[in-house]
């Protein structure tokens, strides 16, 4: 299974409706902190994002735990 798929599965297990965008593999906490979390959408239908995760259910530690189960 590709890293990107495992990342999505792990995040969705923590919060089903979380929306996010990322580039490359998420392997380290530094990678995790580069995930673009979607907080809205602009007039061009482009996602408005932040690198600060807005979901309390999702942290690097919780993510890593779920990721390592896959």
């Amino acid at each position, binding site marked *: 299974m*590709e890293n990107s798929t495992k990342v*999505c599965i792990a995040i969705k297990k923590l919060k089903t409706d979380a*929306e*996010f*965008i990322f580039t490359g593999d998420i392997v380290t906490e530094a990678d995790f902190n580069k995930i673009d979390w*979607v907080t*809205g959408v602009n007039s061009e*239908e*482009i996602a408005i994002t932040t690198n600060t995760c807005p979901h309390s259910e999702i942290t690097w530690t919780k993510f890593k735990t779920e990721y390592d189960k896959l």
Partner: protein
Amino acid sequence: MSKTTIPTGGLADDAVEATKLDLTANYAFTGTVSGAGGGKLLQVQNADFTSTNTTVSAASFGATEVTDQITPSATDSKVLVMMSLTLGMYEGSGTGNFCQVAIYRQVNGGGYSRVSFGNADNAYSGQGGFGASTEISSARPCNLVFVDSPNTTSAVDYKLYIRLNVASGGGDNVNTGPSNLQRSVTLMEIGA
């Protein structure tokens, strides 16, 4: 008597016709041919990507790494935009995978706006009809061709954006394909 030079006035306007000028022959021009009319290919830009890919798990469009830049030499030039890649899609537990793609343009760093809808103005492309709670991993070739009239001589960026049909359960993520699968962008400036 052989002649090596014929003055312009020495030939009537209709003196050289197709029967005398072999139109099927090949002629090698060593100078510049101007005033020929019709479109002219002025420049080609190309970018290939074979490493880092982009994954989007959102109902709104996310920017990808599939992008290239061209600076038109004239405001009335057209730009032929071609993008080619294989989209990867994943659904952990559902009935289908559906996504949308679109080409966005940015002029002189002024922010991106959508110029080619791809399939983003109507249906979502993908696979459906699976039984409930099915895990689906699929790949879908994606080729976009678009002729733009940017009306500028500033730098123009073209970038692929992708998104999911999350609202109807159409997938968990869409990405720009496995990192070892080539994605490419080709931009051609065509003179007026």
